[in-house]
């Protein structure tokens, strides 16, 4: 659409503040980070010798950084599919014509707007041995087992679950806890996007499906999911980008432990830059993270598009 026809210089004046702002505080830092990554740049030393790709070679050979990359991929691989699936399931629930679904949507959104430091502190409690919420629930389950056992005269004690698990201080559990927390925090925003996508599906499609005698599963499989493709792509890509950058919960809850099992790349960069003062090395690590995010996003786009084309052919 050719609008108004008023081509003038005043357009540049209107976009100038935001453009200058992004140039100085977004584009320039990206380029500066590339420059930093090619230097040995210690924050407290005056000279910054050029080292070429030396930082990249060093960090790829560094087992601790490789460990951080592995941990990040474990976190992404677990939290993204689970996060998207739970949000979609909940969105389907709150899209039904029920009373008070609006209230539930607001309550589900609540964790996402709250301070992550405060939330991490509460999660430390949830995960505590014996008194934490999870171990407390396990304790209730154990007591229920005993009472059921005595009622029926069976010894069910072998089914009891230990209530002393210190989730944040056991390798494996700590990562699982971070994943669980990410599902909880991210539920609301992802759900709202899915709800918006669901509202855009034409009602006639469902009416046609009813006429054809489709059951609920078929409606989901052949109407809802295909119609949600671009929403799905958006949610998957944004969730992935956020998951690669997990930081605050690690900083507050685990500090990368136990035994470096939650030392993700973002936290590793934090330590490199602000505890070891190696800004050049940290910049190189951040570019590796950038490359991983870009690569995964491109793969997700390509896979989704191929899926769409295949469905279109059918």
């Amino acid at each position, binding site marked *: 659409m050719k*609008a*108004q026809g008023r*081509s003038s*210089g*005043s*357009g540049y*004046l*209107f976009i100038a*503040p*935001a453009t200058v702002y*992004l140039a*100085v*505080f*977004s*584009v*320039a*830092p*990206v380029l*500066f*980070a590339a420059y*930093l990554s090619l230097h040995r740049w210690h924050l407290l030393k005056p000279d910054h010798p050029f080292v070429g790709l030396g930082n990249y070679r060093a960090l790829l050979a560094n087992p601790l950084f490789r460990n951080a990359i592995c941990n990040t991929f474990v976190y992404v691989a677990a939290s993204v599919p689970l996060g998207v699936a739970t949000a979609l399931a909940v969105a389907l*629930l*709150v899209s039904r014509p*029920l009373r008070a*679904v609006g209230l*539930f949507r607001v*309550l*589900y959104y*609540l*964790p996402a*707007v*709250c*301070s992550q*430091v405060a939330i991490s*502190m509460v999660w*430390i409690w949830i995960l*505590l041995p014996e*008194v934490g*919420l999870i171990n*407390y629930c396990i304790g209730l389950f154990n007591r229920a087992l005993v009472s059921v056992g005595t009622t029926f005269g069976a010894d069910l004690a072998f089914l009891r679950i230990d209530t002393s698990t210190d989730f944040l201080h056991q390798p494996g559990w700590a990562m699982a806890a971070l994943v669980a927390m990410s599902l*909880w925090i991210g539920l609301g925003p992802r759900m*709202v*996007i899915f709800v*918006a*996508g669901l*509202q*855009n599906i034409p009602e006639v499609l469902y009416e046609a499906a009813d006429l054809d005698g489709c059951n609920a599963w078929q409606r989901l499989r052949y109407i809802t999911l295909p*119609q949600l493709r*671009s929403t799905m792509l958006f949610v998957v890509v944004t969730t992935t*980008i956020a998951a690669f*950058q997990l930081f*605050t919960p690690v900083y*507050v809850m685990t500090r990368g432990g136990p035994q470096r099992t939650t030392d993700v*790349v973002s936290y590793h*960069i*934090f330590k490199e830059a602000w505890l070891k003062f190696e800004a050049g090395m940290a*910049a190189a690590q*951040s*570019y590796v993270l*950038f490359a991983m995010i870009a690569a995964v996003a491109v793969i997700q786009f390509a896979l989704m598009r191929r899926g769409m084309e295949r469905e279109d052919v059918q």
Partner: protein
Amino acid sequence: MRNGLLYGVLILIAASTVLPFVWMAFTSLHAPNAEPPTMANLFAPDRWHFENYTYVLTFRELPIWRFALNSVVVTSGVVLFQLTICSLAAFGFSRLQFRGRNAIFFLFLLTMMVPGQVLIVPLYLIVHRFGWLDTYWGLIIPYQYLNTAFGTFLLRQFFVTIPRSLDEAARLDGCGDLALFWHVILPSSRPALATVAAFAFIWTWTDFYWALLASSSTTMRPLEVGLSVFRDAYGVTRWPLQMTAAVIVLIPVVAVFLAMQRFFIRGVVTSGIKG
């Protein structure tokens, strides 16, 4: 029957998102040195220790009022700054013709793809060079690239839906670009502006990483960083006092969220994500 089951599931999920906050609120009223309460004694402390709030609010080493003032100054600064530059840019991108318009808009969107991790070390060095470390400037200006790109995008999407007939009428009345922007476009866009303001508020109020780096003296810390300092000072002891501090930090965010919740949800819809 079916609906009963559905409500059961909905309530169960709601319990999981709300229960931690309930625990937080009630724990903050237990005796300062109490063990972390379980669900069994959460609602039955020896007595209600409201004095925890007085204690935390008047704690000498961690001046929470000062933290709160810093958060208010920084957050309102960011909201005003973002509303100004985003709405001006969105007006340019949606209403005015100039060469390279689409290319520049695409570059705006591209900045959303850059992870904050890449920016943060160079930003720190740039802000250091400007002499902005440990000042409000350093806390307000630099780390807003996401707000700027998102806000411009969202407002542009809204501005293009405002009927052109309004523009033409205003032009006939002799309005220039700035008058059109100020008297026609902005007054018709209150919900979109509220959405941008709401997101900018929440993102800034709860930002941790940049605030941790850009503030170094106790008097410049915002609440979010102050809370983490508080936690470090007490380790995993004195849970009730930690939770008191957490409640104080959360009340403003939760209040703003509840008052503005429809704008959060509308923001997702107006940003044009279609199924």
